[in-house]
């Protein structure tokens, strides 16, 4: 290999990520000497747009903050408005929200699997994962009327009740998933080529993860059992039985194992939700649901997204508009602090692999 120092741009379009983001890489041979993250390809100004709209108008744009999993945004938005406005959601709506969030988590993990396998050339796995994700999107289409941006979890409940026979169809899908996920173990997780590429690559220590505020699978793959659903339960997660999978190696493979185990846990949670789904209303009665007036107060709410802790800060000022909303997702710290340090010393061919394992979603950085 030559010792010539070259600089290349990885991205903004590449298999390592869902969305547009580039990494400027300084290389000697194939080894990365310095990595600099560049964002700015997707700025839509969500936080500022929200300030100019009434509450229900803002509701329709928050889901666009993350394409692979829009529902944690909707849940956070609804929970923040409910907390400020003093609304209490019905039990059925809470269970439906959990169902939507877990289905969305499962869909997001399939999308991750497609990206992760694609980043090392296992394209058949990616096609399987996208096809299986589509089965979940079919359920979303039936439940919410939309496949990707659901705009379904609304302040005060959810917008529609479950269609007839829907829980049966969810159960059928879960039975299929239980069998199907084992096939992914054979062709992807236990695949020697994936193991050889992923083990020992992109290693993060537990101390570093805690000190820098890394979340989600990045933190859990370092042996820290941190999950908002357990640590600060919201909706009905407290009454559901599930485990928080962890690993200790802190590398790309450990993160993949954590994600794969989480898919099993999501299926387990969904099975419980299907069994425990209560009867009742899905939306509380509000005389003028077009006119939310948030009091002069602020709040901080958070949920566990498929990529880690996802939080919203929201402040009202007594008007129909939200004075300030801030989105705190895992991507910013993962794409800057973590990715830039993790790529130093890595091979060029591992960039997409490492990047995909961190769960970075660029629109969430440029909210």
């Amino acid at each position, binding site marked *: 290999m030559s010792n010539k120092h070259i600089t290349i741009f990885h991205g903004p379009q590449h298999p390592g990520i869902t969305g547009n983001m580039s990494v400027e890489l300084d290389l000697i041979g194939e080894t990365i000497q310095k990595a600099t993250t560049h964002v700015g390809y997707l700025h839509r100004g969500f936080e500022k747009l929200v300030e100019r*709209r009434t509450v*229900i*108008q*803002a509701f*329709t*744009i928050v889901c666009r903050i993350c394409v692979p999993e829009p529902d944690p945004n909707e849940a956070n938005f609804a929970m923040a408005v409910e907390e400020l406005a003093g609304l209490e959601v019905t039990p059925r709506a809470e269970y439906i929200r959990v169902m939507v969030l877990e289905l969305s988590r499962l869909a997001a993990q399939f999308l991750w699997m497609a990206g992760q396998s694609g980043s090392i050339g296992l394209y*058949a*796995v990616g096609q*399987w994962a996208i*096809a299986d994700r*589509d089965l979940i999107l*079919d359920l979303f*289409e*039936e439940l919410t*009327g*939309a496949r990707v*941006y659901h*705009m379904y979890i609304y302040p005060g409940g959810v*917008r*529609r009740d479950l*269609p007839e026979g829907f829980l049966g169809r969810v159960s059928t899908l879960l039975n299929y998933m239980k069998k199907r996920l084992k*096939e992914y*173990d*054979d*062709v*992807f997780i*236990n*695949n*020697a*080529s994936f*193991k*050889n*590429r992923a083990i*020992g*690559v992109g290693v993060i220590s537990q101390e570093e993860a805690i000190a820098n505020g890394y979340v989600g699978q990045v933190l859990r793959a370092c042996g820290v059992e941190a999950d908002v659903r357990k640590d600060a339960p919201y909706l009905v997660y407290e009454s559901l039985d599930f485990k928080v999978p962890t690993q200790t190696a802190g590398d790309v493979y450990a993160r993949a194992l954590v994600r794969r185990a989480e898919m099993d846990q999501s299926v387990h949670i969904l099975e419980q939700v299907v069994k425990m789904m209560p009867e009742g209303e899905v939306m509380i009665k509000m005389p003028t*649901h*077009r006119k939310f007036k948030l009091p002069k107060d602020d709040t901080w709410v958070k949920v566990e997204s498929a990529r880690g802790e996802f939080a919203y800060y929201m402040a009202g000022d007594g008007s129909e508009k939200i004075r300030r909303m801030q989105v705190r997702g895992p991507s910013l710290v993962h794409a800057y602090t973590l990715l830039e340090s993790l790529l130093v010393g890595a*091979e060029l061919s591992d960039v997409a692999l490492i990047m995909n394992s961190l769960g970075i979603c660029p629109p969430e950085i440029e909210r």
Partner: protein
Amino acid sequence: MKWSVDIQGTLSPLKILGAFFQKPNTIAYPTVKKATATGYRGFHTNLLTDCIGCANCQDVCMNNAIDMVKTDQEYNAKNASQCIPRIDYGRCCWCSLCTDVCPPDSLKLEDDYINVTKYASDFLYMPKNKE
């Protein structure tokens, strides 16, 4: 990077070959079409015998995709403004808030979502007069 011999890890991915004997997940579009789910958020419909021309839909639309227009169609007698909504599908995000806030429930979304045209002006869509 260290490479080691992993017999099980080398052989187990070969199970993917079994997929050759399975039915494909894809459909032969356009000869076979997948039915849209009931309640899919497609194009707007507006039952003119019910529409009261209140412009709530226009008011709530954050994308300014709806404007109230006069047409030569026959309106509901209670339609005070004598205007009905027209949707700009260049702006609409199919959030369906307009249908949520419609007092007589005349504005709805149908399952159909395909509009093929060579004219940009066709993005301005008059909802079909049906339930």
